[in-house]
């Protein structure tokens, strides 16, 4: 049983990692917590649902994931254009980003509520409660699928950030935008790229969460809180901190839910986050500790 809980926790944590990383990458460049991320997750969960449901025989899962990722990119760039770009041009204080992102998050959730608020939408039942065994351990196929997809995406992302030219540019702009520009880096392009990456991550996590839970307008908001907790524990803006923190969070959550039930668990989780903010505000990694928040 313990091992099954552990695997289930890691699987949940890997989705939190996708969310936390989408959150952290925007924070590392623009120094604000992009709460619109939750709205995008909800919207993408619905997009994925309707895409999947529009076929007589549902397409392979990766097709839905890719389609939604692309929709996430488009949505993120659209949000950047209408809500953030002007703030950037005016070099307005970070607070304005923060307000704009909350506004967008609420706006998306309300729009979804107007159209789809009355029902719960379950993804077409292809994965429903199928399980398989390896030895005597029972695996849920949804959990396994989520884990595999998340780990693949995280691996690709870390490769891009750490080993490619654009990844180096992203890290340089995160450290010092003005000096990056003197290296010939176009910081506007980097910012747009970062929003595109965050959008793709929102899209993918939306689909994964939709298959695990059902789809409802505040899905993204409630899940994003978990990603947010993870990125705080990992150190705001730090990718290397956010991933282990998110997986740890998933595991802790699953075990706590098993022991304490699903009502008491969030109280403990938020308690942990408060303790972290109090004693180690720079997070696990301690990187980017200064001039954050």
């Amino acid at each position, binding site marked *: 049983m313990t091992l099954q809980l552990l695997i289930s926790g890691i699987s949940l944590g890997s989705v939190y990692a996708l969310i936390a990383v989408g959150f952290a990458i925007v924070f590392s460049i623009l120094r604000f917590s992009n709460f619109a991320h939750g709205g995008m997750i909800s919207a993408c969960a619905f997009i994925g649902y309707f895409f999947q449901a529009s076929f007589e025989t549902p397409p392979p899962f990766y097709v839905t994931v890719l389609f939604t990722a692309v929709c996430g990119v488009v949505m993120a760039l659209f949000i950047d254009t209408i809500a953030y770009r002007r703030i950037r041009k005016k070099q307005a204080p970070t607070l304005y980003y923060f307000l704009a992102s909350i506004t967008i998050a609420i706006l998306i959730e309300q729009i979804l509520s107007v159209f789809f608020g009355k029902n719960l939408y379950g993804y077409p039942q292809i994965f429903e409660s199928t399980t398989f065994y390896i030895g005597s351990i029972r695996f849920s196929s949804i959990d396994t699928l989520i884990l595999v997809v998340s780990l693949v995406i995280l691996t690709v992302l870390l490769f891009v950030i750490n080993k490619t*030219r654009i990844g*180096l*540019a992203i*890290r*340089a702009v995160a*450290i*010092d935008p*003005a*000096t*990056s*520009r*003197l*290296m*010939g*880096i*176009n910081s506007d392009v980097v910012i747009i790229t970062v929003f595109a990456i965050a959008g793709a991550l929102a899209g993918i996590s939306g689909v994964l969460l939709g298959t695990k839970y059902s789809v409802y307008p505040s899905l993204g908001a409630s899940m994003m809180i978990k990603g947010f907790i993870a990125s705080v524990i990992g150190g705001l803006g730090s990718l290397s901190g956010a991933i282990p923190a998110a997986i740890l969070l998933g595991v802790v959550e699953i075990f706590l839910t098993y022991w304490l039930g699903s009502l008491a668990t969030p109280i403990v989780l938020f308690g942990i986050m408060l303790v972290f903010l109090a004693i180690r505000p720079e997070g696990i990694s301690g*990187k*980017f500790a200064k001039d954050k928040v």
Partner: protein
Amino acid sequence: MGSILQIQGLKVFYGVHEAVCGVDMDIQEGSITAIIGSNGAGKTTIIKAISGAVKHEGTILCRGVPLPPRENRVVRQGIVQVPEGRKIFAGLTVEENLRTGAYTVRGRREIDRLLQEQYEMFPRLRERRQQDAGTLSGGEQQMLAICRGLMAKPKILMLDEPSLGLAPVVVNDVFRNIRRIRDEGITVILVEQNAKKSLGICDYAYVIETGRVVMSGTGEEMLQNPEVAAAYLGSSRK
């Protein structure tokens, strides 16, 4: 060789404050041009204007062609700035710092060649290439900042106060390397408060006071000029 950069009537405003008030300069290809002046004179602002980092009035021509108004495009023209205070990327390794400098350079092999060039010049950087650049000493950081600039294969390299805060031995080292860079055919614009040293190595110099060119001439002429001596040479030995 001839002139590579012509600046005419350059003005820069920060709000209503006029930091540069109509500067003319003519930079000769393959030379070291020093821009000296006390703190707040407007030296940094002039090279920021060349880099496209601040809005300006007046014209800046590179071989007769106006420079683009954006930093990343100026770099692509081969005009590269090594900013005041080194501004290396702490948190990136030494090698990653060098690679950011080559952002506009295409081709993995070319970038590797440039890396080797820097490492040959400063073996210390090779030894520390996987180390966080933030852990280097001040002198090493300055070398890294200069090499990072060279990674872009510049025609014109603009150095803003490269000797600032360095020990005298290290300063000598930096100035020796600046001359070597010029000897390799790169045009150097050297902004310095250390007037004595920079006049010693430059081919031509401009003296800036409150946003204006107040004197100019060869390094030799400036060193012998009594006004320069009174204003800059007495107090410049830091």
